[in-house]
């Protein structure tokens, strides 16, 4: 069982780090608390939806900002949605960039928007990577016969 304990410790350390570095916030913990034996994949399912939504929105944003004449209301609408879903899963850093992004939309500042788009893409890629690592650790623990510590 040593292996399992090691993995569990690793998972806890990793999760703590993610919170400390601001990638995740308490909302993520809320989601974890909604998971149980009757719904063992809840968090993975919600996060998967977040990944799908985000990728779609990031594509739309790139398109909308690529136009000759930018429709800032459309940009804002996409960012608003991205902000909403990132907030719902506790992806704090993505959410923060979205807030700045919306301010640039309000000001109709193209350069600001393009910078934010790049930033939000980066933050999204980071949090996606972190979450996938986290889920892999969880899978390893389960495969080794252990349970996921909360």
């Amino acid at each position, binding site marked *: 069982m040593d292996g399992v304990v090691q993995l569990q410790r690793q998972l806890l350390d990793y999760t703590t780090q993610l919170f400390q570095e601001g990638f995740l916030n308490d909302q993520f913990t*809320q989601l974890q608390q*909604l998971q149980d034996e009757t719904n063992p994949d809840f968090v993975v399912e*919600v996060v998967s939806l977040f990944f*799908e*939504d985000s990728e779609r929105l990031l594509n739309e944003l790139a398109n909308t900002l690529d136009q000759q004449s930018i429709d800032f209301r459309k940009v804002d609408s996409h960012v608003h949605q991205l*902000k909403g*879903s990132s*907030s*719902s899963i506790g992806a704090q850093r993505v959410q923060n960039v979205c807030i700045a992004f919306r301010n640039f939309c309000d000001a109709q500042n193209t350069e600001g928007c393009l910078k934010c788009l790049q930033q939000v893409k980066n933050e999204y890629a980071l949090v996606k990577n972190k979450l996938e690592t986290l889920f892999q650790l969880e899978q390893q623990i389960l495969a080794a016969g252990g349970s996921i510590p909360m």
Partner: protein
Amino acid sequence: MFSSIAHNLHYKSLPLHSVPPPLYKYWKQIPRTFLVMGSAAGEFLRHVLPEKVGVSDHSAAGSELHVLAVDDSHVDRKVIERLLKISSCKVTAVESGTRALQFLGLDGEENSVGFDGLKVNLIMTDYSMPGMTGYELLKKIKESKAFRKIPVVIMSSENILTRIDRCLEEGAEEFIVKPVKLADVRRLRDFIMRGEEEGEENRKKGNHKRKLQDDYSISPPLSPAPSLDCEISSLLLPSSSSSSPECPSKRPRLWVED
């Protein structure tokens, strides 16, 4: 006219995180007059709010609540669905106001025995949705004879006072700021279930609801300004006769709008 009262309260300029969240969410249930009493009373008011009321044995209340959840976001639909199920509610989650109206049978189809006969006890809707907003959906529900009694709760990621006010004015039961938490859903469920139980009792007794005023045993420290609306003065001083003869508006504004 309310300048002195409003100035003390200065609701609009309070950073929202300094307003105790439960108080803020229960605006609808508090007669507006009490909001002028300021934050000192806020602490007291928190204690009379439904969240502090012990919930009696649920089995006595009968079947589970059926909630219709409306949200265009996949993520949010999934989360709200889980929050509700874990709180022992039946859930129907739809992606738009149009779908919600279809589900209720309010989409113009002449079919009064709509959906599957499952009574809806609560509607929770997102505010910002493409097409029909949550506010527009709220209006349509409140305009409908069949469904206007169903409590409607608005959810929004944006904390905009005028928006909140507008929704409450239109008859929303509550306005919840996203992300929605389990505590929010539980409190809502308990409140609705209590309402359903009381509704049953009242139907039996033929009583009218005066619960809100009966619950408050505090005596308001402020005496009404002469220009106060009739409604306010009668709430503050039930037995007083010193009220303005003019009743210009039904729902006076106690703070300055944008």
